[in-house]
């Protein structure tokens, strides 16, 4: 049938004639504005509060909710202790640059800065095997992991997340809830002393700032009772 000469022309003409009567797709732009698609999130932007501090608390809820997994973030946890990260390891270091941390209005615990180091994951695999890859027994897994490595390396947490299927954010939440779990080797935990030793001027400033803020809240705010 396709060999009939001129049939293609007839088919094409029929197509354009059908299009002629179909509803049109033009949106009369300045007068009519089309609704934003419900998955549209706009441009990603970190907001600052009225004191110029980043509102982002690195809770990873946005990264977790992102339908197309385009959010990739890192920062300091809410208590200013540990580096946390969501996303591919190769984008990790850049997010923890000191200037970025300083911009975020948080303390910059310099000695804690450690480039992402791959660890031997055989140990984690063995532990996971032992606990049957069960995300319900996360606390035990994490404790065993800390017992094996001395702390909870990010790579190990990601491995656990990957293998058990639990969200990284939930594992991180579990780990940061318990005081006896730590994300850095014990030697690096005493950060404040380290900062005071290496950069005394900054430590003095931070101490002064802390004492100034302590009883009276943020500057510009009426003193708390």
């Amino acid at each position, binding site marked *: 049938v396709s060999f009939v000469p001129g049939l293609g022309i007839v088919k094409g003409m029929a197509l354009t004639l059908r299009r002629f009567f179909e509803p049109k*797709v033009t949106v009369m732009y300045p007068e009519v504005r089309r609704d934003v698609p419900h998955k549209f999130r706009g441009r990603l932007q970190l907001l600052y509060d009225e004191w110029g501090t980043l509102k982002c608390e690195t809770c990873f809820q946005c990264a977790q909710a992102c339908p197309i997994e385009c959010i990739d973030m890192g920062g300091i946890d809410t208590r200013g202790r540990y580096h946390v990260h969501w996303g591919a390891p190769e984008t990790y270091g850049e997010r923890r640059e000191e200037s970025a941390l300083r911009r975020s209005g948080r303390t910059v615990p310099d000695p804690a800065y450690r480039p992402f180091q791959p660890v031997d994951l055989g140990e984690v695999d063995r532990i996971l095997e032992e606990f049957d890859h069960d995300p319900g027994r996360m606390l035990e897994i994490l404790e065993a992991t800390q017992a094996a490595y001395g702390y909870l390396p990010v790579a190990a947490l990601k491995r656990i997340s990957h293998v058990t299927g639990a969200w990284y954010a939930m594992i991180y939440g579990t780990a940061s809830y318990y005081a006896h779990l730590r994300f850095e080797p014990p030697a690096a935990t005493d950060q404040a002393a380290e900062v005071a030793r290496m950069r005394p001027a900054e430590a003095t400033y931070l101490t002064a700032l802390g004492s100034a803020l302590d009883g009276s809240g943020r500057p510009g705010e009426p003193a708390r009772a």
Partner: protein
Amino acid sequence: MTVIARGWDRLTLPGKLVFTLVPLLLALTVALVAVIVVFGQPIIDILVANLPIVRFVVAVTVILVMTVPTAFLIIYMEMKIIALMNLRIGPDRVGPFGSLLSTVHGLKVLMKEDFTPTGADSLVFTWAPVVVYLASVMSLLVIPFAPGLFGFDLNLGLLYFFAVGGLSVVGLLMAGWSSYNKYSLLGGLRAAAQVVSYEIPLTLSVVGLMLLAGTMSLNQIVLQQSGWFTDWYIFQQPLGALIFFIAATAEANRTPFDLTEADSEIVAGFATEYSGMRFGFFFFAEYVNVFIVSALFVTLFLGGWNAPFPLPAVPLDIDLASFNVGLLFIAGLSPVILTLLFAAPFYLISSRVKWWQALIIGFVLANLFIVALLGAWAYIGLDWVAGILWFMGKTYFFVFTFVWMRGTLPRVRIDQLMDFAWKWLLPVSLLNLFVTAAAIVVIRSGQS
């Protein structure tokens, strides 16, 4: 005075000519009318005695004036229809549904600079668009629009049509040659090659029809097709009609054979150096050509102004004089009565309609009714009204088809174009001619 003098100095030579000639023509026309009114009878006698000349002048003027709105309408159709086929809306800002956009285009073209390149042969360069446009307009002269409504009834009408239509090649070559630009020259040669190649199958495809009709007068050809639509020549010459349609598409430089002005390929072809109204003439000529080609196809193969079926003759002999003074009352009162009549139901049915709103609705409806009544009366009573309606309906159907093809088909390559003309259309049109001739010989010898 100085203002006028300065303005006069700023005008170019053509501008000075136009600003002199147009008022002169207007004054002459007014003077002519005044002289006719004053001296009356002798002048009318002279005009009646030279009726062919008067008729010729009037026909040429009317056709020349008619081409401009025709081109505007077809340009608008093209913009709108292709847009609708592309699922767009198309022009919608100027006038109702954007219908004045082509007029705006025309004005824009008028306001642009009329540029002549250095080194161009300015005389030929100026006359080329005129030749192209006149070739189109002159070929429109022999087309019968309705019974008794044609420029000439030349007994060589078809030959005249092809001869004058062939003049446009001269215009294209003039444009290409005089532009002092090798791309224009190449474009002009290309256009000429295409038009000349397709002229041959175009002419040969109607020779069979001429054998059948026994005449070359377009008016006679239309008259022979009167009656039912089965009498149309397309049913006796289907192959001829097909070849004519394809070759005419190429003649009019329409898609898929629009290589002469292929905007995406060659830089406007022969019209590269043209701007302003000179380019506008080429542009108009293209669209007038679309109309002409459609009109000729309708005239030759689709019965021209004949209705597809003979209408039953309705006797319509209302003697207006018998009403006497009553006619005045009817003419004066019928709009009022009709308005009230059409307004009444709207006012009575819904209490939400105010009396003045009902009156407005009634007035509009009454006007529509009167116009419809007059139209029906004209259709039945005046055969040229019916004729021109059918003719324009058929012609604009083909104009639509040309636009439709432009919205659908891709452009052919130049070698495909030439191959198709010489290797397919020419042999097939010869075959059509021989078969028709043989059939006529066999049938007529059987009859005698």
